[in-house]
C-alpha cells in the first residue's frame, strides 16, 4: 500500500515539476527562465547579471543599450581579461543590484558582482546607467577598455639563479648547497573572532633566493600542543636576497587564553628564481573607514606579463609594532607598464591603530615555475 502511494506521489511531483518548474531549477539546468521581461531598470540589470553568470556573453552584449560603442570581443575581454588571469576562470557566484536614482526614462544602479576563483572570492562593482528604450529598459555598460601594450622590445638583464644539487652518485659526505638562511624578524599573535591569528615578518638573510614557508604550533601552558597550522598563501613564498615577507597563520576556533607558548617553524629551500619582474606599488593610500582599506596601483616595470598578483600588506602602529597582515589577489593580469588598481581590506576595529604600512607583491607568470 505504502509503495503504491509513493509511486503515485512520485508521478504527481514529476508532472508538477515538468509543467511548472521553479525558476532556480530551470536556471541550474541551463535554462533561461530566470530572465524576465526588462520592463523595469531592476529587471534589465538582473537579466544582464544572469547572462553574465551563465557566461552567455552574446546575450549579455546584445541586451546592452550602448553596444554600438564597442564590440562583443571587447565586452568579453572586459569580463574575462585578455590575458591569463584570475578572471579567466572566475565564475560569477552571485550579484547584488542597488538602485541609486531613477526617473521615467533613465536610472542609476550599482551592480556588485561576487566572483569565485581557486584562491577565493573577489568582488567587483560597476555603476550602471540604465535607459528606457520604448517598452523595455537596457543597460549602458561602462566598458573598461583593456589597454594593449605596443609592440616593443624590452631588454631585461636582471639576475637569475639556477641551482645544481648534489647527485645520487656522489660520495658520502660530498658537499651540497646549503638551504638559505632565513629569520623571523617580527611575530605577533592576536585574538580574533575567527580564532587566534599569528602574524609576523620573515627575512631572507642569504645571498640566494629562497622558497619559504612558516608553520606555527600553539602550545598549552603544560607544553602540550593545541594545534599546528601553516601560512598557506598568506606569505610571499619566493624571497630574493634580503627580501622581507609578511605572514599570517590562522588557528580557527583557538582561544588565546589557553596558549602558553607558540613554536614557530620557518622552512627554506634553495630554488631557481629570477629577479624579474619588478612590480612597483604606487599611490598607496590608507583609508581608515568606514570600510577601512589600503588602496593603490600595481605597475609592472618589466616586460613580462604577471598573470596573477597577490598583494600582501603589513600594517604597523605609530610605535612601529605590527598590527595586522592582510592580503588580496588582483583579478587582472599586470601588463608591462600598465597600472592596475588594488584594494586590501582591513578590519575596522584595527583600522584606528594603523599608522604605517608596508606592501609587497607576490606574483605568478605563466611559463615560470615560480
Amino acid at each position: 500500500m505504502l509503495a503504491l502511494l509513493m509511486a503515485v506521489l512520485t508521478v504527481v511531483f514529476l508532472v508538477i515539476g515538468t509543467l511548472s518548474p521553479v525558476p532556480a531549477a530551470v536556471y541550474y539546468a541551463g535554462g533561461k527562465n530566470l530572465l524576465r521581461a526588462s520592463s523595469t531598470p531592476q529587471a534589465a540589470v538582473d537579466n544582464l547579471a544572469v547572462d553574465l553568470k551563465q557566461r552567455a556573453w552574446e546575450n549579455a552584449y546584445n541586451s546592452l543599450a550602448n553596444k554600438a560603442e564597442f564590440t562583443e570581443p571587447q565586452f568579453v575581454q572586459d569580463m574575462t581579461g585578455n590575458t591569463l588571469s584570475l578572471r579567466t576562470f572566475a565564475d560569477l557566484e552571485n550579484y547584488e543590484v542597488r538602485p541609486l536614482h531613477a526617473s521615467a526614462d533613465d536610472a542609476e544602479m550599482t551592480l556588485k558582482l561576487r566572483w569565485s576563483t581557486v584562491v577565493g572570492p573577489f568582488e567587483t562593482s560597476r555603476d550602471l546607467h540604465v535607459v528606457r528604450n520604448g517598452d523595455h529598459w537596457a543597460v549602458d555598460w561602462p566598458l573598461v577598455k583593456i589597454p594593449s601594450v605596443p609592440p616593443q622590445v624590452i631588454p631585461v638583464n636582471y639576475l637569475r639563479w639556477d641551482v645544481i644539487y648534489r647527485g645520487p652518485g656522489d660520495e658520502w659526505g660530498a658537499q651540497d648547497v646549503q638551504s638559505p638562511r632565513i629569520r623571523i624578524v617580527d611575530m605577533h599573535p592576536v585574538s580574533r573572532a575567527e580564532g587566534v591569528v599569528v602574524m609576523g615578518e620573515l627575512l631572507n638573510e642569504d645571498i640566494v633566493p629562497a622558497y619559504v614557508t612558516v608553520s606555527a604550533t600553539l602550545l598549552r601552558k603544560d607544553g602540550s600542543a593545541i594545534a599546528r597550522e601553516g601560512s598557506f598563501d598568506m606569505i610571499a613564498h619566493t624571497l630574493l636576497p634580503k627580501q622581507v615577507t609578511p605572514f599570517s597563520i590562522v588557528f580557527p576556533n583557538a582561544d588565546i587564553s589557553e596558549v602558553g607558548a607558540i613554536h614557530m617553524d620557518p622552512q627554506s629551500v634553495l630554488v631557481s628564481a629570477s629577479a624579474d619582474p619588478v612590480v612597483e606599488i604606487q599611490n598607496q593610500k590608507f583609508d581608515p573607514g568606514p570600510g577601512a582599506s589600503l588602496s593603490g596601483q600595481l605597475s609592472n616595470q618589466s616586460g613580462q606579463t604577471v598573470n596573477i598578483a597577490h598583494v600582501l600588506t603589513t600594517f604597523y602602529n605609530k610605535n612601529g609594532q605590527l598590527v595586522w597582515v592582510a592580503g588580496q589577489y588582483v583579478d587582472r593580469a599586470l601588463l608591462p607598464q600598465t597600472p592596475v588598481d588594488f584594494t586590501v581590506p582591513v578590519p575596522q576595529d584595527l583600522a584606528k591603530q594603523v599608522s604605517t604600512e608596508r606592501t609587497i607583491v607576490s606574483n605568478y607568470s605563466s611559463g615560470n615555475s615560480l
Partner: protein
Amino acid sequence: MIAKKAGRLLGIALALAPLAGAQNSNMTVPATIEAGSAFSIPTTGSGQGVLYIVGPAQALRRDVQLGVAVQFAAGDLYNAGHYVALLVEGSSTDTAQFDVTPKSQPDTLSFFAEPSRVPVGLHNGISGTVYAFDTYHNLITSPLSVSFQLAGISGTPLARTVTTRDGVAWTAIDSASKQGSAKFIVQANGITTTRVIAEVPGDPCGLTISAHPDGQNLTVETAPIHDCSGNPIPDGTVVTFTESYNGMQSTVDVPVKQDVARVDMPAHPGATISVASGVVAGNEIRWGGGR
C-alpha cells in the same frame, strides 16, 4: 647478500657451539688481525674438518686438513669487527674469537664542511668534520692526526691540527673578512680532501640614496652598496625604495645590479624618499619640488 650469508653461517655456528667440548682437533687464532692482511690459523689433529669465520658483515668457510695451518690471502678478510672462528670435525667443534681491526693508514677522508655559504667575519662560522676510512671503508678508530686548512683568496691560510677520537675529528674556524671562494682542505697521512666554502658579504652598511629628475619622474639610486667590511653586495639583493607624498606612499623592491639599485619614481614635490634592505635602513631624502 654478504650479511645474509654471514647470518646463515652464524646460525650454523650457534647450532654447533653446544657441541663444543668433545674436541679431537684444535686451532690457534691470532687475537687481532689487520683488515685485508694475510694470516694463517694453525690447526692440530688429523682428518678433515670445516672452518667457519663469522663476523658482523663477512663470513668465510674453508674445508681444512687438520694438522695443517689454514692460509688466508691478503684481502680475504677485510671488514673490521669482532669475529667468531669455529673448527668443526665430525661432532666436535673448537671455537675461538678474534678482532679484525681497521688498517692504520687512511685511504679516504669523508669531509663534511658546513655551511656551503657563510657571511664574512663570522666567529667559528665554518665547521669541518672528518671521518677517516681505510682501503676497505672501515672507520679508523685509532687516533690519527688530521690537519684542517682554510685558504681564502687573500690573507694567510688558517690551519688547525686535530687528532681523531673514535674515528672523528672536527674543528670550527672563523670566516675571513673578504668575500670569495675559500678552499677548506683536510689532510691526513698524505690523503687530502677539499671543499669550497663561499664566503659572502654581510648586511649592507651605510646605505645611501640620491635622486635626480628625469622628465616627470625621479631617478633614485643608491651609492655602490657594500657591507661593513667593504665587500660589494651581490647582484640580486633586494633594496626597497619608499616614496611618501600627500598622505600616500609608493614602494618598490628593486634588485641590486652591478653594486647599485636604481628605480624611477613619480616626482611629487615635497615627497620623502627612503631606502632599506632587509633590516637595514638607509638615509632619507626630501624632494624639494624641483631641485
